[in-house]
């Protein structure tokens, strides 16, 4: 489910099935030397999260990304986000990011994937890469789900 009206309505009617919230964490960097890489990372993360949503639509809510600049990062408290979502009825909260800094936060479920530059790639190649990337994400999700 995405965070939009029809999906939220479906979520509220099926809360017992949709028990996982996935929160993308998106780093934005605007300096001349970093903005191109940052933009490419953002494109990758957005493509991948949309694909994950398509595969697991009935089990998870994909929130819009939490975006931050470097100076804001120390103030971004994952436990607050996690708490709000758990209060709303989600059993599992998973963060997904291309920013390696979050991997250190071992008390949360963080899926970290190195970004692959997708620009100037043909659509079939892109799809193939996304499917391979998805295969890396699936075990993490199924682990969380079976570990009840």
């Amino acid at each position, binding site marked *: 489910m995405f965070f939009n009206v029809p999906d939220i309505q479906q979520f509220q009617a099926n809360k017992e*099935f949709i028990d996982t919230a996935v929160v993308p964490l998106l780093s934005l960097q605007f300096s001349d030397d970093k903005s191109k890489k940052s933009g490419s990372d953002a494109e990758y993360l957005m493509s991948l999260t949309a694909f994950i949503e398509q*595969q*697991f*639509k*009935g*089990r998870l809510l994909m929130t819009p990304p939490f975006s931050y600049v470097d100076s804001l990062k120390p103030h971004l408290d994952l436990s607050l986000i996690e708490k709000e979502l758990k209060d709303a009825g989600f059993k599992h909260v998973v963060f997904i990011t291309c920013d390696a800094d979050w991997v250190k936060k071992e008390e949360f479920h963080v899926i970290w994937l190195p970004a692959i530059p997708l620009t100037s790639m043909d659509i079939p190649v892109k*799809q193939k890469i996304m499917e391979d990337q998805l295969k890396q994400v699936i075990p993490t999700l199924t682990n969380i789900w079976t570990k009840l």
Partner: protein
Amino acid sequence: MSNNRVTRRQFLTYTITGVGGFMAAGMLMPMVRFAVDPLLQTKTEGDFVLTGQKVSELTDAPVKVDFSFERTDAWYVSETTDSAWVYKDGDAIIALSPVCKHLGCTVNWEGDPDHPNQFFCACHAGRYEKTGVNVPGTPPTAALDQYEVAEKDGFLMLGKKSANSFA
């Protein structure tokens, strides 16, 4: 000479009738054209989308066929990718939508090793027979949708989604 001459009055009447006739025709013609337009539309491959799948390479084992089309959502134009599970049943080509009828996840062929020869939805263990008919006792309440199929130059084309014909 004088009797056959067109009078000023006659000249004006003819002219106005003629010009008026053209004006009326100019207004009526497009209206008539619009009214009969649906009948004149040629039904070419209308809503069919060409895929990269060769029909000759299909077997009785379902394969995933991806296809893309452009979608406009207000100002946001995006290239949407969808897929279908396609296999041959005798000579007939069956194309099933991979969207689970429970809550819309994507189902996979033989996704669960415990249940071969079935479609499996990883979200809540929903299962479907090869025909797309849902297995009773699992969460889905309806059969997988089916795509219209067509063939063009040896490649598979997919059309509209409709309810499963095996259900």
